[in-house]
């Protein structure tokens, strides 16, 4: 019981002492409170405003309540809002803070201060020629350019703002206020866009029922038969199709590779690297990627690339030697560059269907037999 009494007495003494101290402290404040005050840490170039250690801009906005002469305003950067005990000059500058390179942005309104004095790190002040009192509740905006934030992440710091009648931030402050700001850990975003190439060939390549866009899942087998028996008096033709899309930054190139039509030791000569017209009675095996119109020696065969290229999301086009209707080319056992995605400039493209049209002409002496070849198409994207 006696012990409890001692504890009660001790507790009461501590409380009474504390209240006495608090009461004495509360009476020491004399300056008026600066109102509606804020500090916005503004980005400078690519450096985010709250980036720890970043050199950014500090934008102060507040209202001065007193209707007295204002010659300067001091911005004291501290790790705590006020000293200990409150309202003293105790201030520890945040680690890494640099204000000595700060300059003053052109005022945009309110009470104007033409210059900043930043010689003391952590305590810059703006100054003006003291003149008549600006009136009560005067708005002030100050933007300090090139302040290096404290270097600790996710850490608050405080700026004690004080107005002075003097032009060098000396003497007794007229009005005071504190703002808080905080550095923040930047969030780094990352993601991977995979390299993409969708390429298929077949006798036909269809389109998706829903979207109407090329759909490689609909491609059929690659066996292609010519429309008729080879003849010195008529041109035989056939078609195959292929579709390609890629997100390669430099687009793709498609080559056709393989031997010419062959039966045992007999062949039908390819038409060469330079496109030429169909001529009946001459050994010719060639192809192009165009919609060919029937003429004296050319059958109506083939279609244009679809959807049509537009230089934005559709860039597929036939290469020069395979891009003229009624003209064909083919070099055996050599990569024939037949198409690319450079319409409107090289780049990625959505899926388009190319139709390869093949023609065959033979002379009267062409040995009888079944002529076959395997053409391999290779699509090479450049990322």
């Amino acid at each position, binding site marked *: 019981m006696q012990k409890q009494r001692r504890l009660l007495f001790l507790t009461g003494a501590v409380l009474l002492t504390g209240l006495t101290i608090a009461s004495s402290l509360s009476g020491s404040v004399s300056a008026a409170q600066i109102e509606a005050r804020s500090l916005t840490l503004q980005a400078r170039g690519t450096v985010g405003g709250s980036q720890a250690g970043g050199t950014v801009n500090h934008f102060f906005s507040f209202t001065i309540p007193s209707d007295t002469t204002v010659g300067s305003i001091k911005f004291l950067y501290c790790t705590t809002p006020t000293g200990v005990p*409150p309202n003293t000059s105790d201030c520890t500058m945040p680690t890494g803070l640099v204000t000595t390179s700060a300059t003053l942005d052109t005022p945009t309104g309110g009470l104007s201060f033409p210059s900043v004095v930043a010689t003391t790190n952590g305590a810059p002040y703006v100054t003006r020629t003291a003149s008549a009192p600006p009136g009560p509740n005067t708005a002030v905006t100050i933007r300090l350019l090139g302040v290096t934030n404290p270097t600790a992440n996710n850490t608050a710091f405080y700026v004690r703002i004080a107005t002075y009648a003097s032009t060098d931030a000396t003497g007794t402050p007229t009005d005071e206020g504190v703002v808080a700001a905080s550095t923040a850990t930047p969030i780094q975003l990352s993601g991977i866009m995979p390299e993409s190439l969708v390429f298929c060939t077949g006798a036909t390549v269809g389109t998706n029922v829903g979207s109407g866009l090329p759909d490689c899942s609909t491609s059929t087998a690659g066996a292609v038969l010519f429309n008729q028996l080879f003849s010195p008096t008529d041109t035989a033709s056939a078609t195959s199709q292929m579709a390609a899309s890629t997100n390669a930054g430099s687009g793709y190139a498609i080559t056709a590779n393989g031997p010419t039509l062959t039966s045992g030791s007999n062949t039908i000569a390819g038409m060469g690297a330079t496109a030429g017209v169909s001529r009946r009675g001459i050994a010719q095996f060639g192809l192009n990627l165009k919609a060919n119109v029937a003429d004296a020696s050319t059958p109506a065969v083939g279609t244009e690339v679809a959807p049509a290229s537009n230089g934005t999301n559709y860039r597929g086009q036939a290469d020069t030697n395979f891009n003229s209707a009624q003209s064909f080319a083919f070099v055996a056992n050599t990569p024939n560059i037949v198409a690319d995605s450079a319409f409107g400039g090289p780049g990625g493209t959505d899926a388009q269907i190319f139709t390869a049209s093949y023609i065959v002409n033979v002379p009267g002496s062409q040995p009888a037999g079944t002529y076959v070849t395997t053409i391999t198409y290779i699509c090479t994207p450049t990322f």
Partner: protein
Amino acid sequence: MAKIFLGLGILVSCILIGVNIPQAFADSQSANYKFFESVLGGTSMVDSQSANFQATATAGILGLGNSASTNLQLNAGSPTTGDPALAFAVDSSSVSFGAFSAAAATVATATFRVINYTSYGYVVTVFGTPPTYGSHTITAMASTAPSQAGVEQYGINLVANTSPVSVGANPDHGQFGFGSASTNYGTPNNYRYVSGETVALSPKSSGETIYTISYLVNVNSLTPAGQYSGSQTILVTGTY
């Protein structure tokens, strides 16, 4: 009873000798007792509870027995100081989306938290560029809109979503928080990103609010392949 008085006495003594404001978010707790926002000093924010007892009170200079309506807020307790109190922490320093796909959206989250007392509130703004590779930047969503697979989109919001997948969370106000997502970033399943815009705010003095940012990326089939990266800076500005 005497122990209770002694505890109170020690607590008040600590305050009067001037304990600084720590930037701590970890709450002290045991199986039967917990301090929420346990900061002692000029901005003491103490909520006490046990199995059969709970008190929202202050042991510091700033009273925090908080009562609030739409237009009025009362912090009951001993006299307050005019000093601001701001604590701000970004919990996630990196956000990885993995592989983008033109067939489906890619999402990720990050969290940050804000405490801001003796203020007229705060605003949270986000700065930075969308994910970029070389000269290509994922298109930012200039207007608030839903996810659309196959269309380049980069957007964020600060609420719980169910589309394109379940992602994110509504602001967690804890015991005393009043922060909320801004209008443009507060509609579930709708995303947006304009650098420098306000994404969250509190109209008044607020205890801890934990925000979850939901990030959305959609790409199209032509989005150039590569490793995309970007940096976001979150900024809290309080008005005191």
